[in-house]
């Protein structure tokens, strides 16, 4: 099989990252559960949840990278898919509360009792079953992406126009979920969860398990996206990104190519949201905020779009920085964050991973150095 040197190189990188993720999936829960709190290698539960959250963000960024980095679709609405997946999971968790809510109503979540609702709305049916909720976690964002993409790609809405209408989509959803009449808890969203699959959601072991689940899911999705990107379909994706009309004149149905990636990406984002909710304990319309989607783009850019490891690194870097700086310099962290974005776009246009791998490639194989640059070629060069 003929595979270029670079792809071989990248594949090795991905194997390493997958191995690290799987290692973490075992090590962090083990260090958390099995060591005494004063042990030097003890990982506090607080960090387990925090890292679990980062991993779901990483998954979201990976999902965005599939469409942006490889297909040139800059979605400014990916947080919407994330939030929808989160809401599906949140609805399951709400139903699990059962009669343990403040008002003790066995069927209705507290906020419905609060607003004088008498019966469960139809779209809440079925969410008491985990398999159904899990299905909805991928189906709802997937379906929205499919319908939205079907229209947008068929009409050849491109570039900035597409970005702006995805933003309009998430903004409209934000406003809709804010409405208390929608039946999703309005501004407060869904919270006060108790159990997941019968386990206490606040228990240390549950948190460790959720972390492990996030790490394993991220690793699997990384393998999946690698397979997608390395397949001929993946090459077509990049071809669409670089020269859309050329691809079309070769006979590819660009709208189908895009639609598939967009839908898969939305489903991955939905899964990320579903893993996120039980770890942070709340889902509310704030997740639809257009700014959140822009942040995802920024994680991806910081890490390096068009590489698969980049978005993961970017999401963890930026969010880790945010966690540290919001506590260390509460008054000034926004300067650091804003400065980081400017710095990365100006000096690291390929992102951290892109720059490092380009540098490595140059050093390792100087004769082929020029090729390495193109690995993360500008996706927007053509259109």
């Amino acid at each position, binding site marked *: 099989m003929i595979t270029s040197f670079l792809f071989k190189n990248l594949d090795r990188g991905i194997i390493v990252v997958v191995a690290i993720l799987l290692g973490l999936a075992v090590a962090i829960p083990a260090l958390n559960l099995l060591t005494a709190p004063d042990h030097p290698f003890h990982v506090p539960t607080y960090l387990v949840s925090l890292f679990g959250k980062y991993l779901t963000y990483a998954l979201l960024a990976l999902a965005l990278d599939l469409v942006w980095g490889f297909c040139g679709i800059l979605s400014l609405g990916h947080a919407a898919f994330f939030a929808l997946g989160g809401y599906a999971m949140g609805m399951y968790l709400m139903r699990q509360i059962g009669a343990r809510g403040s008002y003790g109503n066995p069927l209705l979540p507290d906020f419905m009792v609060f607003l004088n609702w008498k019966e469960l709305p139809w779209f809440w049916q079925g969410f008491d079953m985990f398999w159904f909720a899990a299905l909805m976690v991928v189906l709802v964002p997937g379906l929205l992406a499919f319908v939205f993409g079907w229209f*947008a790609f068929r009409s050849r809405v*491109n570039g900035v*126009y597409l970005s702006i*209408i995805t*933003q309009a989509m998430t903004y409209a959803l934000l406003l809709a979920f804010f409405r208390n009449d929608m039946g999703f808890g309005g501004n407060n969203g869904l919270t006060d969860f108790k159990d997941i699959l019968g386990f206490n959601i606040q228990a240390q072991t549950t948190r460790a398990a959720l972390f492990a689940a996030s790490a394993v899911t991220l690793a699997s999705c990384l393998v999946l996206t690698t397979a997608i990107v390395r397949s001929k379909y993946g090459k077509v994706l990049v071809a669409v990104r670089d020269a859309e009309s050329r691809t079309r004149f070769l006979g590819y149905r660009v709208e189908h190519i895009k639609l598939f990636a967009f839908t898969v990406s939305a489903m991955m984002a939905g899964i990320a949201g579903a893993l996120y909710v039980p770890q942070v304990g709340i889902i509310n319309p704030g997740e639809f905020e257009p700014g959140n989607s822009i942040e995802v783009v920024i994680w991806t*850019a910081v890490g390096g779009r068009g590489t698969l490891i980049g978005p993961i690194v970017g999401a963890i870097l930026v969010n880790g920085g945010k966690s540290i700086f919001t506590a260390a310099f509460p008054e000034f962290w*926004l300067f650091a964050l804003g400065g980081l974005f400017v710095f990365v776009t*100006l000096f690291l246009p390929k992102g951290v991973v892109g720059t490092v791998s380009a540098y490595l490639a140059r050093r390792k194989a100087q004769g082929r150095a020029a090729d390495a640059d193109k690995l993360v070629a500008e996706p*927007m060069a053509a259109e």
Partner: protein
Amino acid sequence: MYRILQTLLITLCLLVSVHVTGLRAADDLAALVATLGTAKLSELDDRIDALARSGDARVIPVLEALGEGNLYTRKADGSVFLTTEKGASLVLLDPLSGAEIGEAAKGDIQKIKVNNSVRRAVRSALSGLTLFSTDTSARLKAAQSMRQTPNADALEAIETALAAEKDATVRKTLDEARAVTLLISDRSDDDKRAAIKTLAESGGREALGVLTSALSSADASLKPDIEAALQQIEQAQVFWNAGQNVWYGLSLGSVLLLAAIGLAITFGVMGIINMAHGEMVMLGAYTTFIVQDVIRTSYPVLFDWSLAIALPLAFLVTGIIGLAIERSVIRFLYGRPLETLLATWGISLILQQSVRSIFGPTNREVGNPSWMAGAFELGGLTITWNRMWIIVFALAVFAALLFLLKRTSMGLKMRAVTQNRRMASSMGIRTPLVDALTFALGSGIAGMAGVALSQIDNVSPNLGQGYIIDSFMVVVFGGVGNLWGTLVGAFSLGILNKFLEPYAGAVLGKILVLVLIILFIQKKPRGLFALKGRAVEA
């Protein structure tokens, strides 16, 4: 001849009565005023009534001061004063004569507390007293007040005033006030019928309210008349309501236009996805705040000019900041539009936090100059001055920008550079300079928009965030790169929004508008006024 005689006679009578009571009650009046200082809140109404019944014009400033909360009482003896500020202490003035009678420390005297019911009493007392004022606007105010809060006892006074009134506007208002008052009086049904007719003709919501409340208490014989009048007014209202919606739509559209117009340059013309655009608007608003702050502390007389002063300053400040941003960041990113999104988002975070650090996170006060406050009636429409001036301003900015781009050599260069950078550069245009100036222009216009928006919205570090998404929607909906598209886009979205709002509510209305934009872009993937042909595809 007869009328002149009558007027003379009435004036004479009034003068005499005022004079007589004046002589008799100079002391009484002072005593009455003095009681204001010691009265409880619930007793104030009666005291005001008593003062009003004196009919003495000298009472007017006292009542006015009371209503505005400027009447003070000395804690020590409960005597009543008007005051003017003088350093740390206050100069005390006699409430009736206005003569200076000493000074007091601020802690020694205290405001006479008033509440809404006292203010209402003051208002109706004042309207009785100023109905015969020589000042037309005072008479108008009195008439309006009487129309708003009718008092059956005042009917004869209104009729007397009506007979003497020359000014057409005041006459009309008085006429309506008379009709309103007559309805609650014990006059004959025929008189009332005529009054109902007057009200039906005058129309408007106030008449509607008066008639609705009259309906419940009126004689059975009058009810059909009232109902017919109500129907007549309501029919007229349907028409005016539609007009009102159009006006609100235009007004919202003008706000959208103002917010978007700078973006139409930086994003539409230059292709920079400028997420820091909202912050430019915000900085413009803060410039207004600073200008007003300086004026307030140093040159209070200039307050009405504050916006005129702020406009060029805001343009300069935001223009220079825009220039700095372009030179330091954006110029490295031409041809990479999506990266400009990331960098400008970072810049917007920094700008927001800077403003928060400098001015604090809370709202800052930006006042309306007098010419932007209040409203006027146009037929059945209530048109607020600030909204009207904002529409005018938005259109003026638009026209000026259009002129600049289409009719000046600078505009020509800007268009040349944005359409074909290499060609323009090879023709000797200094493209970096033109880029920088174009971005500065877009930013400067955003700053000017901020001056206008400071009049209707919060001046806080978050100001820009509220407009950025709407601005992008407007520019994209109108068609990127087309100023006319932005104009039409802004106004059509504004009007659409305002027509949906009464039916769907504010939230659902906005959601519907967004969904319609998404659908519209499917139909016209390049917006309302898309450029066609091969050039676009390249």
